[in-house]
Structure formats: C-alpha cells, structure tokens
C-alpha cells in the first residue's frame, strides 16, 4: 500500500503535466524513495493513479536502471562508476577495496542489510574521478583511505 504521504506527493505532481501518464516516473521515484525499492503491488497502485495499465508502469520500471524493481537494496546503496575516466584513475581498485571492506561481491548486499554494492556507468563526475554515489550523495577523488573512512562512518 502506498503511504498517504506518497499519494499526496503524487497528486501534487499532476499539475505539472498535460497528461497524467507523465507523472509515472516521478510517482515511482516517490514510492521508491520511501521503501528503497518497488514491488509489483506498488506499481499496480501507481498505474491506477496515473491512469495506465500495470504493465505500462512495469515496463518503465524495467527500462530505467535506477528503479529497484523487486530488488531490495541495503540502507546504503554504493554505486561505483566504472566508465572511462574513473577506470583510467583506478575505479577497479576502488571496487576491489569496497568488496574487501564490505566482505561482499559486486551486486550483493551485506547480511546486516546495511550496504549494497553495484557498479554504475558514467555519473558525470569525471573531473573528480574515481568516484562513487552512496544513495543521493557523490563521493569524489576517491583513494583507499578515503573509501575506508566513508564506509567506517556509515557502519
């Protein structure tokens, strides 16, 4: 069930667009922000609100990489950029360091559900490579020591 707060936020968005369907992406973002991921039931409710068939919400969920559809993530979702500029400056090493520190492989979640580690394509922060995003925040100019410090603070 969507929360009343989420429903209210979605209603506020409709005024921005000529068609209700345009609010699909934002509605899904609002719901994901609350629970960390989206379930099929969430998407059915969203479909009803924006006036489309459930499958039309599901296909949006499947297309955009940031929607965690039926894929719970830890409290902290660590995404390390693996594209060109970050790779040139040691992204692979940063990923290895994180795997060791968190004791998981890329794509996994720690048993305490605190961290999920994934890779990401270019996050538009190439001048401060290597970098990672944890939830909403960017962490840039990474070194081993810096990664240790960041993870240590979140643990």
């Amino acid at each position, binding site marked *: 069930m969507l929360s009343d707060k989420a429903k209210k936020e979605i209603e506020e968005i409709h005024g*921005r667009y*000529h*068609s209700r*369907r*345009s*609010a*699909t*992406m*934002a509605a*899904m*973002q609002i719901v994901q922000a609350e629970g960390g991921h989206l379930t099929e039931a969430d998407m059915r409710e969203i479909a009803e609100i*924006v006036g*489309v068939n459930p499958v*039309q919400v599901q*296909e*949006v969920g499947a*297309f*955009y*990489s*940031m*929607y965690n559809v039926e894929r719970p993530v830890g409290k902290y979702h660590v995404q390390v950029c*693996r*594209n*060109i*500029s970050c*790779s*040139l*400056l040691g992204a692979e090493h940063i990923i290895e360091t994180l795997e060791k520190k968190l004791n998981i492989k890329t794509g996994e979640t720690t048993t305490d559900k605190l961290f999920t580690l994934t890779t*990401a*394509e*270019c*996050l*538009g*922060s*190439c*001048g*401060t*490579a290597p970098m990672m*995003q944890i939830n*909403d*925040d*960017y962490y840039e100019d990474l070194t081993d020591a810096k990664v240790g410090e960041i993870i240590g603070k979140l643990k």
Partner: protein
Amino acid sequence: MEKMLLNNVDKPNSEKISTYISGGGYKSLEAALKKEPEKLIETVKASGLRGRGGAGFPTGLKWSFIPKDPTLAKYLVCNADEGEPGTFKDRVIIEKDPHLLIEGMIISSYAIGGATSYIYIRGEFVQGTKILEEAIKEAYEKGYLGKNILGSKFSHDMHVHRGFGAYICGEETALLESLEGLRGQPRKKPPFPALAGLYAKPTVINNVETLSCIPAIVSKGADWFKGIGPEKSPGTKLFCVSGHVEKPGTVELPMGTPLREIIYDHCGGIKGGKKIKAIVPGGVSAPILMPSYLDIAMDFDTLAAKKTMLGSGAIVVMDETTCMVKVAYIVNRFFSHESCGKCTPCREGTAWLTQVLKRIEYGKGKKSDIKLLDEVCDNIFGNTFCPLGDGAVMALRGFLHNFRDEFEYHIERKECMV
C-alpha cells in the same frame, strides 16, 4: 576573454537568486520582454550560436521552425540529461549558477511562445535537482516566473523532470518519450519535435549550455558573440577535461582553442609528466585523436573534417600506460549497457562487440576476432534507429584504426602491450 558561462560559479552562494541578481542577472530577461519574440529569434540566428549538446545545430534556426500559430501550445525542454562519458560541464551550471540557465530558458520560451518548459535532468543528479527546484521557487517569488512576468503579457511555468538512469534519454525524442511517462526509446523522425514534440505539440529541445548562452547574447548582442572564436562556430565553449591530466576540470574558452592549450595551459599537462598516448576529444562517441593532432582547433567543423567530433566538449586524456584494448572494452560495454533495445543492429551488435572485446581483454581472443569486430561494426553503422549504435562503432573504429597492433598483441600474447 570575457566569460559568459562561468562568471558566477566561484562566488559564495552562487546558486542563490540574490547573488545572481547582484551580478546583473535577469536584466537580459527584462530587456528581452520589451522586444518582439521574432526579433529575439533573429538575434540568436545572427549570433551563430550552435547547440552545445553535441550536434552543433544552429539554435536560432531550430527556434525558427516552431509554428507561429498563437493558439498552439508550445514547449521548451532543457536537456540536462548529461550522460556522455567524460562530460561534466552542465552539472557546473546546474549546481553553481542555476539562474543563468533559468533566465536563458525564460527568454527562449518567450521567443518561441512557450507557456511551459521542463528541465529534464538525469536521475543521478539529486543535488542538481534540489538546487534547480529551489532556484525555480526563488524565480517565482521574484516574479520572473508565473503570471505576467515583470508586468508583461508573458506568463510562464517551469518544472523539473527527473530521468532515472538511461543514457539514451539524452537523445531528444527518447527524452520526450520519457517526459510522457514511457520507456525512453527514440521516435521516428520526421516529424521533428519542432512540429510534433512533447504531447505532439511544437517543442524546442536545447542543451543546458546552449540555453545558458542566451542571456549574454541578449545583453551584449549577436555581433559580440559572433566575434568570439571561429566564424562558423562562434562563442565560448565549456571544455571538461578528465583522465590523466594534472588539473582536471571544466574550463570556459573561446571555441576553436587548440587542444594543446586546453590540456597543457589550462589543465596542467599530463599527470606525473608522462607521455600522452591518445585523446577523446568530445565524449566517448567521438573517435580518439592521436597526439599528432594536439594543435587542432577545438570547434565543430575542424573536428568533423578530421572524422571525429566536438560532441559535448568532453576531453579524456590517456597517457602512455593506458591499454587501449581495455579502454575500447570499457567504452563498448557502456554502449551495450545503454542500448535501448529498440533496433536489432544496436541491441545485438553492441552486445556482440562487447563479448568479443571482453575475451580479447581477458586473454581469450582468437586470431579472427579483429576481422569479426570490423564486420560487426560494418553491420551496425548506418543501420540503427538512432545515433547510439553509430556512436559505439565510431568509437571502436577509432581504437581499431589507431591501435590495431595493440589488439593483435593482446590476442597473440594474451597480455597488454603496455
């Protein structure tokens, strides 16, 4: 050189409307609203401004395609889906000087007669989204947005729309699909967005940097703008430099500045004094340049003549220790990951290229693999629905053409040449 894009970014609280106004901000909007919209389009045409997203299409000409019928709803969409690997220039404006963009968008909307505009920002830019939303709120409070702006007859609403992880949405028709709540897959053209864009209504889609040039063009005039840089690619340009340089970052320089000057004078040269090996001149879709091209003028036409492109102005520098097979693999993996799946040559082709590049990189390449890569490239190029597949091929061909020996070495010896 007088800057027009990065004037405010180093000021404290540069994102606040008070900072922007105290630096002369929103004066261009005041002046623009006193002019006929048609005159503004003429000014932008005369300035020679070309789209900064990558294609370099003349901005004024794009605007002039919008039908004049006042009964038609029209839209302006700012493409802030900055995603071409190596690109981080629009983010500077979004986070540090959002009002420059907003002022540019209000003026542009007035010129084309648009009552509503959207900023389509990539989902990962959470901070940028918050900053833009706050800046739009400030602009409403000051009367630069909303009903009867500055006492004129022009009313305008502006909204932020977040993408959620899809490189393809930087393609303008995929972006429109996404704005309508669909999967971001490109549309068939024609009809072009100027006639049937968002909700099938006339729509202009411009890049963040392009729209941010508008206030200066209005306040200082078309001739002033045209006086900077080469005649056919005038104005200043944001170059974002990353990779093996001492001082990576975004710099604003006249269009046509030599690559050598950008890398060595403005970005401190190659990291650790190493030798330069290759340069991506305009985002990873742009074929790489060899160091022999360091004196090339960085503008649309000069780079196009050398079979590469200025693209988004994203320069990625690689030093002598870089394995080109690995870089080619990383770049191709990206395109395969981001292929939207709509057309077969791109969806299957980029995945196949990645598979072959991966096995070469990991020492399992076959002798026939280079020929196979060439063949798959030939079957993708020119056969895809949108430029993503072509971009993947252009990038890979650049690596294969300039570093074929490294690919052969990798296959034979099962290790890097470097």
